[in-house]
């Protein structure tokens, strides 16, 4: 069990370290919340400061956030966010950027994992990145003008510039190699993204990635149009399989900025729902990974085992996915005695079946052979790429936001951070399987906690107006790794800036590193799959009869009947 005191002892220590490490680079130090440190550094000293943090203090790189503060009479601003996991402290380096000629020196040469974050700031804010090793455009679509930057405050959210700008150039294939394109649409890439593989026979020589095909501009929407509590619905829909981690991280960031304290029962319910989400997500991943290896037996079985969890989620929250459990200051519903009973009942069955399935996998030499020593990812590479979650823990790096930066009720819960020293696809598999069982343990503990406390008291009092221009940064350990949300409150009813960093943002950047020399084409899909890039699932069907202007939603049983008989099942009256 992790016991974290609310005293500022740790952040005092980190602050002292920072003062001595940054020396005269440090202009100002701010500690708005316990375990949060913001350091102002001059633009020209920012690389030295990043080095002092990343190399000197061994801080973990999280993300870089761009801000447009020209409306407040300042310029732009870049926040380089780090986490000191051993000290349970998050800190950010605040770098001011001039409004006239916005540019900052690149930190990617020091931290390769900062590459996308910097390019995103360049694309969306127009802050030039000096010395970036691959300055091609990243986020903006082909044709989008080079001098229009959507996240600047003077860009209306619904503006549609003429698409007569430049396109993103492709890296040419090295001489003597053939180019194979995985994507933008490929059987095992459920989302549009393109991996161009440069192959010599079956061997991979190099790769070129292109993503951001379906960028949804949700940050812009939240910053311009939505009040705090409506952003939650948007956050929940960032991911189709682990949406709750995003709404939780967002709410926690807002709560931190506004200084709200969430009631204990609500925190337990958040942990409960998050663990339910992790358990179903890991079972889903196991199925997908085996499907990639042509092992559909496990795919079908693990999804069958997962199904009771989806039904449980529907019973508890009213929805198989997109639970909508969070609200700023607490949660929207209670888990009653009947729900608690159902959780325990479901877990017994799921655990038993998962054990049986896992046992058969561990003895499967053909499967283990396909996974072992493939997709090698060393602990140092984990650090440099900022990879998180099972992707990091499968390389023996014990980073876990639940333990390192406790939120919800994790400080009251007892669990193991599962790691594996394999550093390969097998290691990442073993970690996820182990975590599935840990999640079941955690769910039981949450139920026990709920039983011992009175019902009710789910939301704290939230003032009509939240304090303006306050910052919060919070993480949630998603099934795929740490989700990080930065929120800066606005002067109105919604956020001024909201930056989301999903775990896949760092993990996908690390995939080319995993495709070591000697990797074959056959290993690419499973190595990609080993970081568990996420996709959205639609398991309900809605039938629209345009002619009759009628609408009907089929439930699980009706879809099954339809697929078995080939005939539309009769309507069972209004329900």
């Amino acid at each position, binding site marked *: 069990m992790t016991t974290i005191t609310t005293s500022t002892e740790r952040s005092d220590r980190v602050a002292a370290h920072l003062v001595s490490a940054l020396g005269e680079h440090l202009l100002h130090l701010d500690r708005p919340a316990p375990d949060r440190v913001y350091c102002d550094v001059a633009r020209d000293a920012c690389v030295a400061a990043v080095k002092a943090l990343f190399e000197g203090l061994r801080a973990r790189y999280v993300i870089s956030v761009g801000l447009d503060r020209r409306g407040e009479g300042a310029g732009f601003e870049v926040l380089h966010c780090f986490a000191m996991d051993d000290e349970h402290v998050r800190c950010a380096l605040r770098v001011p950027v001039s409004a006239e000629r916005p540019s900052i020196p690149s930190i990617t040469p020091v931290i390769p994992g900062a590459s996308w974050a910097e390019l995103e700031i360049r694309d969306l804010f127009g802050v030039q990145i000096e010395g970036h090793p691959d300055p091609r455009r990243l986020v903006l679509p082909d044709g989008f003008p080079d001098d229009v930057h959507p996240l600047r405050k003077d860009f209306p959210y619904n503006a549609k510039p003429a698409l007569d700008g430049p396109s993103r150039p492709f890296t040419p294939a090295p001489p003597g190699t*053939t*180019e*194979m*394109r995985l994507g933008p649409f*490929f*059987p*095992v890439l459920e989302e549009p993204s393109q991996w161009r593989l440069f*192959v010599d*026979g*079956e061997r991979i020589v190099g790769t070129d990635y292109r993503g951001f095909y379906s960028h949804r501009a949700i940050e812009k929407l939240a910053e311009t149009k939505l009040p705090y509590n409506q952003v939650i619905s948007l956050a929940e829909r960032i991911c189709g399989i682990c949406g709750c981690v995003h709404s939780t991280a967002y709410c926690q960031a807002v709560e931190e900025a506004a200084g709200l304290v969430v009631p204990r029962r609500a925190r337990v319910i958040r942990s409960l729902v998050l663990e339910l989400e992790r358990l179903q997500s890991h079972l889903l991943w196991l199925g997908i990974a*085996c*499907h*990639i*290896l*042509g*092992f*559909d*037996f496990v795919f*079908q*079985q693990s999804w*069958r085992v997962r199904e009771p969890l989806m039904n449980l989620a529907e019973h508890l929250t009213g929805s198989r996915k997109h639970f909508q459990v969070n609200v700023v200051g607490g949660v929207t519903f209670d888990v009653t005695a009947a729900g608690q009973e159902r959780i325990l009942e479901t877990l017994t069955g799921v655990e038993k079946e998962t054990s049986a399935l896992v046992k058969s996998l561990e003895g*499967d030499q*053909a*499967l283990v*052979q*396909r996974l072992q020593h493939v997709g090698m990812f060393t602990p140092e590479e984990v650090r440099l790429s900022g990879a998180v979650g099972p992707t990091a823990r499968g390389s023996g790096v014990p980073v876990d936001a639940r333990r390192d930066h406790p939120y919800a009720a994790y400080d009251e819960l007892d669990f193991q951070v599962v790691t594996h020293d394999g550093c390969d696809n097998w290691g990442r598999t073993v970690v996820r399987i182990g975590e599935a069982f840990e999640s079941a343990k955690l769910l039981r503990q949450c139920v026990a906690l709920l039983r011992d406390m009175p019902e009710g008291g789910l939301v704290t009092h939230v003032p009509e107006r939240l304090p303006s221009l306050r910052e919060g940064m919070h993480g949630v350990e998603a099934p795929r790794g740490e989700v990080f949300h930065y929120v800066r409150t606005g002067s109105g009813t919604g956020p001024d800036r909201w930056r989301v960093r999903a775990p896949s943002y760092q993990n996908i950047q690390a995939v080319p590193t995993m495709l070591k020399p000697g990797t*074959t*084409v*056959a*290993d*690419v*899909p499973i190595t990609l799959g080993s970081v568990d890039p996420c996709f959205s699932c639609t398991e309900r069907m809605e039938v629209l009869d345009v002619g009759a202007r009628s609408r009907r939603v089929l439930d699980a049983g009706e879809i099954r009947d339809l697929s*078995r008989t080939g005939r539309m099942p009769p309507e069972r009256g209004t329900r």
Partner: protein
Amino acid sequence: MSAPLGAVVWLLLGPALLLAAGPWLDGFGRRVRARLESRRGPPMVQGYLDLAKLASKEGLVAVTNPVTAAAPWVALAAAVTAGLLVPLGGATPLGFAGDMVVVLYLLGLSAAAVALGGASGASAYGFLGASRELLLLLLVEPVVAGAFLVVGLQAGTFRLGAMASWELANGPTPASVLAGVAAGVALLAYLGRVPFDLSEAEQELTGGALVEFGGRPLALFRWALFTRWLVAAWVVVEVFVPTPLRGAAGAAASALLVVVLFGVLSVLSTLIARLRIDQARVFLVQIGLLMLFAFTFAVMGA
């Protein structure tokens, strides 16, 4: 029935029978797999339905050259011709001395036609799938051929009908049992089923050698594949587990054995993850060693 008349009847009836029976095996295999996966599975006639659906679609091709156009027909014709030479119910209406070699060649040609078709397109996936298909063929062909050679050496003939009669008369010998096991295991690779479906590998190569094909050409390739499954399983059953029954009863008994063998292969195929080409090579070389033992036994006369 006189021999020439039987040959004529078989020549007319055989192809229809082979073409009609092949897709049933597909439906059967999928049903076996579905049951293992806790699913109900498609109807037994799904193989026919798939072919009908594909055949009704427009056959768009990315490149038009004689090889691409001919490959599906060659694959199907080779598989059917091979099937005509396999003994049925103790009778070999079209058999001749050395027909075993011809059957193996024709089955190999049918597989090679898929690779040719894949390589004749312009897709990197097609090329890679074709190269895997050929490599796999090079590895598995000696194992299967060797197994038949063992029985042939013992029987003193390479005529399938005579080999089956010898096996029936002289019972299973250590050599023929070993060779039969080697051939049975190698069949998974020979038939291109998971874990050896490397040349198609939907999740890696999106269909590999077949990626450029659709509609009728694809239907022909699938039909050729089904026929190849049937013929390969049939010839293994006839030579290594011949039935003493004759006529219709013999044919029925062999058919049952083919279904059982194919069912076992489908179970294995469901329960093993796809191998990488280097792992497939190691596995097939090991099976090849088993076959060499059988060969040694056969030469020693055991």
